[in-house]
């Protein structure tokens, strides 16, 4: 057992690398189907792991259809409604693709969909950045417990959880390994 795995001791892996890969491939197909061929689609990953997921999805499009889908990143920190509940946090990059987002179908990409507040903030941020024709949402894991009327268009895995649990998404580029872990709350990041 590697050091990284032993740290995850109280965590149970619900998705491993091959399953994540398959889920992303399926989502890529679904996006192609729903957007009628993927023209005018822009992927916007929500910082931080959403950005890596968006990039992984873009690779899938390339492999599956030979399509190059523009890919960007979105930091929603300044739009959060819980800013004044925590210390001010450092900002990360917001980078729109050169094509912009006006009149495009923007697919927001995030790792875990939970309360829906991050997505609410992302929709506000999009409003200030341009005017997409449509906005859709792709998430790797939907763990439920929504606090706002927000729903994902593409879901890698529906994972019924208790609010006493934490879902951690590990991605190769950031964490050295692809996995979705389920563990007790307050333990880990």
């Amino acid at each position, binding site marked *: 057992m590697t050091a990284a795995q032993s740290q995850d001791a109280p965590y149970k892996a619900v998705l491993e690398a091959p399953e994540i890969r398959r889920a992303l491939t399926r989502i890529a197909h679904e996006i192609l189907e729903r957007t009628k061929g993927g023209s005018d689609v822009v992927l916007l990953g929500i910082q931080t792991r959403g950005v890596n997921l968006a990039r992984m999805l873009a690779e899938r499009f390339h492999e599956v259809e030979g399509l190059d889908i523009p890919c960007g990143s979105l*930091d929603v920190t*300044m*739009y959060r409604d819980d*800013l*004044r*509940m*925590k*210390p*001010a*946090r*450092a*900002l*990360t*990059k*917001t980078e729109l693709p050169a094509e912009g987002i006006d009149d495009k179908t923007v697919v927001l990409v995030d790792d875990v969909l939970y309360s829906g507040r991050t997505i609410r903030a992302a929709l*506000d941020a999009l409003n*200030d*950045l341009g005017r997409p024709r449509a906005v859709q949402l792709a998430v790797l894991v939907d763990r439920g417990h929504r606090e706002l009327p927000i729903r994902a268009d593409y879901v890698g895995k529906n994972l019924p959880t208790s609010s006493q649990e934490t879902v951690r998404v590990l991605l190769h580029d950031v964490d050295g390994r692809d996995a979705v872990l389920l563990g007790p709350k307050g333990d880990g990041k």
Partner: protein
Amino acid sequence: MKRHLISAKDLTRDDALLVLDTAEELARVSGRSVKKLPTLRGLTVVNLFFEDSTRTRISFEAAAKRLSADVINFSAKGSSVSKGESLKDTALTLEAMGADAVVIRHGASGAPYRLADWINGNVINAGDGTHEHPTQALLDAYTMRRHLGSLDGRKITIVGDVLHSRVARSNVLLLSTLGAEVTLVAPPTLLPVSVGTWPCKVSYDLDSVLAKSDAVMMLRVQRERMNAAYFPTVREYSRRYGLSAERYSHLPEHAIVMHPGPMNRGVEIAAEVADSARSTIVEQVGNGVSVRMAVLYLLLGGAQPAIGADK
């Protein structure tokens, strides 16, 4: 917990880098068609200016408004201050009106420290007497970082009236925190007695320092000093300490020329140098808004400030 930005000393290296990185991201907002973020909605920032400074006030005002804060501008001129009201009473009035942060410019060194004792909001020093001007130092560091990359080991030369310059003092403190080597160049009469304790070198000979400088910051010579026996004549000052086109040509290729403004063209800096491609004087003004947005966000945006010293 209340925290303030009164001195460049309040910032650790990590704090300073956090401000600069945050400013980098916020600068992108200035390039968008909607130049506004909802972050400080509902908060009130008071610009309390006992000295005139349109440039600094507008910069803070733009920064606060871009973060959606409400801004109250308070200028001492024509206010109750001219009727004899004390700083403390002014502060208490602002506090009662619900100021979440006060940006203060005052002619007396140390006024922001006193203010911080009297009110609950965050205090940001926008220049106090001959003491400090930390956000100016941050925007200067930001400008240098944009042109030169990391400031570690960079050689920065600050030239002119160091004695009366809060910009110079804040810059020396901040730049040394960020790992740069600062050299002050000034006539002996325009250096403070305590300069030996500052984390910098001192020289009286501009030409010997210029060729090794990555950035040269020219300070403004104030008109009232010109006849106050700090130096014999303006012409002599300009000849020995002014950045002429000839001196400019001795600077390394990559070096930048800075000035906190407003300039006396032809005195501390030649007009053609001020307008040259390597002059960052206009850019500094724009960077000031991004840096002040970063400071306001980091002090006011969260439950606890992310930067600044406890008071």
